[in-house]
């Protein structure tokens, strides 16, 4: 019993002693005061810094937000610029080459060609050729020159067969020995030759202004031995419809360009077989 009393007293004593050292509860504004002091200290330290360092410190606090904003901005700008209308020089080059390749391929696949070549001469006169080619490789050229003489040539595998407009015997010769006045525009003899000229001679590129073309056509322009070349292509078949050669005029004159040659093409329309046999009666009057 005595022991129990002693221990109770001891407990009370200990509690009293602990009570002496117990911390007083924090005052309600202590937290705010500490925070204000910390902010004041931080601001005091920032005052001593250069403005760029202060700015960098502020940016550092929002690093992730700034990066997120930058990434979204870059992505939006990237999408907008990729959808934009202006093409890079590189894309223009690729486009030019792809058009050339497609045009060449379409010319190689042609089954027949019928083209009329008009060459204006002095006065109202003009010389006219009509070139017809079929997939068998036979080319017929009807020449109607300015001096009124008419001539028909059949060209097949390097041999030219000639018949005059008045009829008579058909003569044959090698294409290399053909007189110069009969030489039709060689670049239009076959679609393959035309494709070669388009790829290698004309140096074509898309025209800046497509105003001269019909809605279902597109224009390519180029140059060949000081002559300006303009070719209109069918936008669906990629085959040429009109080829025009002009004398180069200085751009500031504003005059209409002088046409040197105009070629109109028709593709893949059947050509009567008898027209392609040398010396047949169908020779006559096939130019127009």
């Amino acid at each position: 019993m005595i022991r129990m009393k002693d221990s109770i007293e001891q407990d009370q004593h200990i509690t009293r002693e602990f009570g002496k050292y117990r911390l007083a509860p924090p005052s309600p504004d202590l937290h705010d005061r500490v925070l204000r002091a910390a902010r004041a200290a931080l601001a005091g330290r920032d005052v001593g810094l250069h403005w760029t360092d202060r700015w960098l410190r502020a940016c550092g606090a929002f690093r992730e937000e700034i990066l997120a904003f930058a990434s979204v901005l870059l992505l939006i700008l990237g999408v907008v610029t990729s959808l934009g209308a202006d093409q890079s020089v590189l894309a223009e080059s690729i486009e030019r080459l792809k058009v050339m390749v497609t045009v060449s391929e379409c010319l190689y696949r042609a089954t027949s060609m019928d083209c009329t070549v008009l060459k204006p001469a002095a006065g109202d006169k003009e010389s006219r050729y009509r070139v017809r080619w079929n997939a068998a490789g036979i080319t017929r050229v009807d020449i109607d020159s300015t001096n009124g003489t008419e001539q028909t040539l059949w060209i097949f595998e390097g041999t030219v067969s000639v018949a005059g407009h008045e009829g008579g015997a058909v003569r044959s010769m090698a294409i290399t020995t053909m007189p110069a006045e009969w030489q039709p525009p060689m670049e239009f003899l076959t679609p393959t030759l035309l494709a070669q000229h388009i790829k290698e001679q004309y140096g074509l590129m898309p025209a800046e202004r497509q105003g001269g073309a019909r809605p279902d056509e597109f224009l390519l322009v180029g140059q060949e031995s000081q002559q300006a070349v303009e070719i209109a292509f069918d936008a669906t078949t990629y085959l040429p419809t009109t080829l025009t050669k002009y004398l180069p005029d200085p751009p500031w004159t504003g005059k209409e360009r002088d046409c040197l040659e105009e070629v109109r093409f028709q593709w893949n329309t059947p050509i009567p077989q008898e027209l392609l046999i040398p010396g047949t009666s169908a020779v006559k009057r096939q130019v127009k």
Partner: protein
Amino acid sequence: MSSMSTRKKYLLIPAWILIAAIVAVGVIQSGPPASYFDLYGFLFVLIGGMALVLISFPGAEIGRAFRHAVGVSGSDAELRNSTHFWEAAGRSFWILGGMRSILSIIIGFAGMATQKYAGLPAIIAFLIQSLLSTFYGSLLAVICFVPCWKLMGKLQSRLSAPDAERNETPASVGHPGWEFGAYIGYVLFLATLVLTVHLPRPLMVWTVYRPSLLLVLGGTLALILFMGINNIRLTPSAAFAGMGLIGSLMGFIQMLHGMTVPTPQGVGHVAGALVFILSSCFTALLGMALVGAPLEDRAIRAGRAGAPSAFSRVSWYVFPLLSLIFLVLVFNMIIMPLPPSR
């Protein structure tokens, strides 16, 4: 023991002669010798690769790696660093080979814009230059991987040896932060890029790369933020490669859409898409070479990572190969005519 090794050495001589003869016969049998020379391409890969190495490693470590390559011994840690150096050098040449391949095609087409004739022979010449760059890159990479593999073998043999033979002296690694050599490396790389790339109009670089540059950079930042800046799996290299792949796929989809419209407008879309594919690959490779790989090298040298992550390795070695495949596909698309609508 020494007589055995001398005899082995003598036996190796005819073996080397035989190997050289087989290679020579192979080269002769392959037909008329082709020209494997493209000065600008070679200089870009060689000097650019050296610049990238300078960005990641200080001169002392480079010198030590060369000494280890010729057989000078060192501690395990030093050998580990040298192995890492040679791997980084090989990686740099490989990435630059891929990068120059794309650049050659871009330079070729940009040059074609000012030329009168645009024919297939001209673009075949660009493709030859492209493949030559990859050839130089892979050749230099293999040359660097030889000491890397040798040092790896040496390290492995040491690890399997008894403890007494091992030398665990820590390597004296230079300061792993941004050093003066790194700045020299960046300047050297930019100088190489400017001097070996001849564009008729330098400003066209911006118009060519603008969309893909913005998309790849923005996407890379977004990926890194999404996965967490300190994520060890998604390294900047992997993010760049991922965005390069996404950009290329976007380009291919755009290209196929363009092909459904076989008109000149459709051709324009196809051409734009092909440029997008090329420039996406180029931007991703540039990002990997200039930002991704140096950051990871620095982390390894500072001890924050033990070795390059698997994702980074896949990005460094697979993405340039993928770019080359895309390049060949793009080339095929350019020379393939569009199907005309009937």
